[in-house]
């Protein structure tokens, strides 16, 4: 078994601490950890902390304020819709140079429940929604992945002679049918670095029946997964690929970074900061959409001047 890599997880108050302190942020940006989960307490069945920030908003700030740190934004289908989530995930992928990804869990500890039986997205009041189960969250992960792939990055050609910016005949519908029905395509291309990493946080206490992690997930965090989430200060487990250090709400980011620095010095495997998350984790490119996918637009024709 190779030496496990180190990763970090931040709860609500840590997000405020990290983004509010430029020195801490610079330190975070330099640390050779694989990734940092932003807002893990939102989806790990914790009680909500006194303060938090939306994870994708924090991700956007990190995309602009840092150069090397990689991160996963925590998300749940409770109040979010896969189309809206996929947009933020793809946008983060572009604006962070592929340093980002998403970590899905079932329920959102900070959000009120939606209507009974349609707790996932039912709160949007559109007459649709799904039960808040692991199966629904898995389906959200599948939909996010598919949507991100509907517009291949290399369809952007910028052909000035033909006046064609995008070979839009290559953009396809997602035609996703599961807990969600989503036509697509997404309104942004796939990041140049490929489809974003989509992770799953398995939880000890789940809502509804537990489902086996879907093959769409690049990464599974949790009690029985290959990447263990370990409370800061606890003994580290053996036989895992990666260790995610998770401080409690009353432990500080500074303490977390101190411990991480020490554990790396003591022999946990450093992962050089900078570059796409997918490459840092040694993950293969996501499987492409089926070639039979329905085209969203006609093949563009060279344009004449008026």
């Amino acid at each position, binding site marked *: 078994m190779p030496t496990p890599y180190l990763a970090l997880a931040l709860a609500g108050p840590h997000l*405020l601490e990290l*983004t509010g302190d430029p020195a801490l942020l610079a330190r975070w940006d330099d640390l050779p950890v694989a990734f940092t989960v932003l807002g893990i307490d939102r989806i790990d069945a914790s009680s909500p*902390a006194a*303060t*938090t*920030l*939306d994870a*994708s*908003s*924090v*991700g*956007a*700030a990190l*995309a*602009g*304020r840092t150069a090397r740190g990689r991160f996963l934004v925590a998300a749940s289908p409770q109040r979010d*819709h896969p*189309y*809206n989530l996929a*947009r*933020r995930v*793809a946008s983060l992928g*572009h*604006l*962070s*140079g592929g340093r980002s990804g998403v970590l899905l869990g079932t329920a959102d500890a*900070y*959000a*009120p429940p939606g209507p009974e039986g349609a707790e996932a997205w039912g*709160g949007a009041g559109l007459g*649709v929604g799904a039960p808040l189960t692991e199966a629904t969250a898995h389906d959200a992960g599948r939909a996010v992945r598919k949507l991100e792939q509907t517009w291949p*990055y290399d369809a*952007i*050609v910028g052909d*000035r002679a033909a*006046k064609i*910016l*995008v*070979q*839009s*005949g290559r*953009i396809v519908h997602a035609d996703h049918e599961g807990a*969600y029905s*989503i*036509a*697509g*395509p*997404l*309104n*942004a*291309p796939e*990041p*140049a670095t490929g489809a974003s990493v989509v992770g799953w946080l398995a939880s000890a206490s789940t809502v509804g029946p537990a489902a086996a992690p879907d093959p769409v997930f690049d990464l599974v965090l949790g009690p029985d997964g290959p990447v263990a989430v370990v409370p800061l200060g606890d003994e580290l487990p053996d036989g895992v690929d990666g260790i995610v250090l998770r401080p409690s709400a009353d432990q500080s980011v500074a303490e977390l970074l101190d411990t991480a620095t020490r554990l790396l010095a003591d022999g946990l495997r450093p992962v050089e900061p900078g570059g796409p998350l997918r490459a840092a984790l040694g993950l293969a490119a996501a499987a492409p959409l089926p070639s039979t996918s329905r085209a*969203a*637009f006609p093949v*563009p024709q060279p*344009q*004449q*001047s*008026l």
Partner: protein
Amino acid sequence: MTDRRPGHVLLGINVLVLGYLPAAWQSPLLKKDSFVDPGYWAEIGRTAERGTLDAIFLADGPLLTDPAYDANPVRLEPTVNWGQVAAVTEHVGLVATASTTFNDPFELAERLLSWDNLTGGRAAWNLVTTRGAAAARNFGLPDVPLREDRYERASEFVDVVRALWASAATGDEVRHHGEFFDVEGRLRVPPSRQGHPVLFQAGGSPKGRALAGRVAEGVFAAELTKDQAIEHYRLVKRLARDNGRSPDEVKILPGLLLSLGSTEDEARRRSDELHDAGPASYSLQWLSQAIGYDASKLELDEPFPEDVLAAPSDPQTFQGSLGFRESIVAQIRRTKPTVREYLKQTRYTGSGHAGFVGTPEQLADHIEDWFHSGAIDGFNLQPDVLVDGLPVIADELVPILRKRGLYRHEYETDTLRGHLLAGSPTPSPETL
């Protein structure tokens, strides 16, 4: 021109990705993927800030139209896009459009307040409703609710969002049970430097204006003529007063499509070249959508028939914007062009916003005229191509406005709400 009005004008930039003209992407200053390049977006923010501009706007909608010939359909998610830009700027306001039709009010309230917090209180939400089956099908619905229903939902949505923002400050639970939403909970996101995001409203339907009068702090309007702009300006300010607010609490910024050059001839040449470089098929498509009538059925060399101008064939299912339509029809009735003349005049502007082609000096004259006439509090400028159009605004237009006492020399306020409230007060409020 009427009496000189005290105070300064507000200036925003509507960042239509690379520029409002479809050919913007062909600029030699851009890479083929500039529209998703963080460096491109950072430069937009920094240039706007160099001109001490009040805000930069980003349109949005949860669907993709064909991007074959044009980067305008590309939509990075605005809170993420402006979140990244906020991280590389310090003063400029950031306005993100988000739909009340296809969002959950709790999720959006939490995200917008988080984003506002991280920008240091420079964020605004431009609330819009979403039309059309293409967007609906991304959310498991065959089509969106009809217009009336959509605005009622928007009105309740914004009340829930505002209550949740208030809960962030007070810690009190929101208990909302309405026609569309049931929310019991509170936000645990700390209030931002400006408390919570500024609210913008876009669009000129009666229900949109009523909502603006009730809650908006800024209106992104569409006006083609000064007289109509004055009328709408006074209407929205009056609606604000009728809601017990000061007319100064809502600022009116119509869009203005721009092609600028160092001489008028140069500006015209630029505009012509950019139009000619764009796809020829756009103009009839645009007009059809804007007026709710298949424009390919019109005689190109005849004036518009009155029945086409009178109303969209079916107002309940009309997919365009009523505000834009009203503004287009007023313009056609005033100048009585043939269809071909109108298409040439307007080209494929893609909206009912007025266009301006000329020098920065002439643009300053235009802004000064509309400002002192009481037609605007400011403009939301929409350059043809941003990469070289925005620097002209920041480095040439703004210094002219400053010399005339119409614009501030540096940022004097540190939040977007502060920027807006520092604009000129409503002229003659007693006569609204």
